[in-house]
């Protein structure tokens, strides 16, 4: 059970595929137009329930509850050897020696 007033994230389909713009590529037209938004939960609920939230600007939004206490997980990415190689090239080429 996720308690009322918990900071949560919800998901909502804004337009179904048949309601979408005519002027978009087929791969986009096949899928719905979706939204995600965060806010405070207005009633106790479970993940997967249709809920109401109050957003940062005090608007009421409805949607499916997907996450309680959402947090940022983006980072600097995993190790990439090519990044290391570029570093070596730049430092090597800046040394004062003659180039071919």
């Amino acid at each position, binding site marked *: 059970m996720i308690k009322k007033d918990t900071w949560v994230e919800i998901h909502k389909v*804004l*337009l179904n595929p*048949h*309601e*979408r*713009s005519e*002027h*978009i*590529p087929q*791969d*986009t037209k*096949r*899928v*719905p*137009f*979706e*939204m*995600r*938004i*965060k806010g405070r939960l207005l009633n106790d609920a479970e993940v997967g329930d249709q809920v109401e939230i109050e*957003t*940062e*600007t005090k*608007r009421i939004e409805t949607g499916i509850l997907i996450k309680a206490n959402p947090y*940022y997980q*983006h*980072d*600097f*990415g*995993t*190790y*990439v050897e*090519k*990044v290391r*190689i*570029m*570093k070596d*090239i*730049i*430092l090597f*080429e*800046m040394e004062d020696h003659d*180039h071919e």
Partner: protein
Amino acid sequence: MSSYERMLLKKNDIMKDALKFDYELFEYPGIGFDYEKLMDHAGFSLDDVKRIQNHQQVGNTPMVELKQLTKYARKFAKKGYGARIFLKDEAMNLSGSFKARRAAMAIYQAKKLGYQGVIAATSGNYGAAVAALAAKNNLKCIIVQECFDSKGIGQPEIIEKARACEAYGAEVVQLSVGPELFYEFLKLLEETKYFNASLYSPYGIMGIETLGEEIHKDILSLCGKAPDVVVCTNAGGGNLTGTARGLKKSGAIHTKIVAASVDLTGLHMASDQDFNKKSFTTGHTGFGIPFTTNPDRSDVPRSAARPLRYMDQYVLVNQGSVFFITQALALLEGMERGPAGNTSLAAAFKLSQSMKEDEIIVVQESEYTGAGKHFNAQIAFAKERGIELKMGDPKEEIPGKNLVFPSSGQMIDVKEIPLDDLRKTYLKRYKDTLLFEEDYEYLSLELNTTLTHVKTLMEANHETKKR
């Protein structure tokens, strides 16, 4: 009629309420409008803009001579060649990019007109800028961004931008791929009655004129002359337009204006599947070309960003080269910036090599970097999506398939798009329109060329059509 179509019908009324700016005042009888009158009507002189931005801690960023990068570029230039490369460190603005200049004006106007809040449709730095300035001016703020694909995977750079906006107290509405973002944007404007902090209003453009003026003054005081070349990363066209206007207003009339974009040819911007195959979310051809050849495709009736009026050259660089130069900037100058804002730096690195040693080339912006938007984050994200990573000749890069990093600084190159190709694309939509002399006069201003040349280009379009 779908709810989408119904909303688009209300577009003009919603827009009028959300900007309080009557674009019809400037329309000519034919295809054109009075651009300068539109800009004047906004009612701010360059000095007003400076004063407003000063109050908001925006502008007056450092101009840095990139001596090490210049030295690096000269290794690949003929003797006596290799212009001095300067960088206007716009990352030092509030919120970390030049976009604060645009946001400062939009927010000032919203406040003056008595709006309770602002809304901006942007997945980029502009969101953070609007959010930061709204916070400072006690306005509510909603940022609408195109963020994730149908699998729910978000672009790391856009996720970082959402974090920044939320840090400044904004509400962030995250959407899946598609132009229907505009539908949600209109719906929110109608619901909240907030101000449309459009990137393309006159306020959004005049905010950048101060950048052009500062560049001229900075270089004058450091080098005793105006810059020979200014390179602008080009997406929606506002950056280039405002910078060029500011340079001209301050008297730098001979400075050559170069547009630079990351080459994403082949990737469709409204494609769900292509969305996460690109390593740049802005500064690329997916915005640069359409907004240059059709500026009025924006979220206002007449865009104040009209880059073809001002550009002298348009060059493209590949994704791998921008990552390479981003790394070089950190390694050789101690400046961790970008990557998207370094598009013009990659171009300047190459262009400087065919300029004389005593000439000056200015890269007119930088942007903050961080988790998600760091170049390592973008490259690792591409690798996870199955994009091949290669060292080699950047010319072999195929957007969406691979990233090719130059195996030497010498291989960083630019691909030029002839301005006449862009002009012809611009003119295509008038091929079945009866044009009068005043229409041609308007077009000659829009395309920054002679009336005769406009007519020649129109005829060339007809020839291609017949063939």
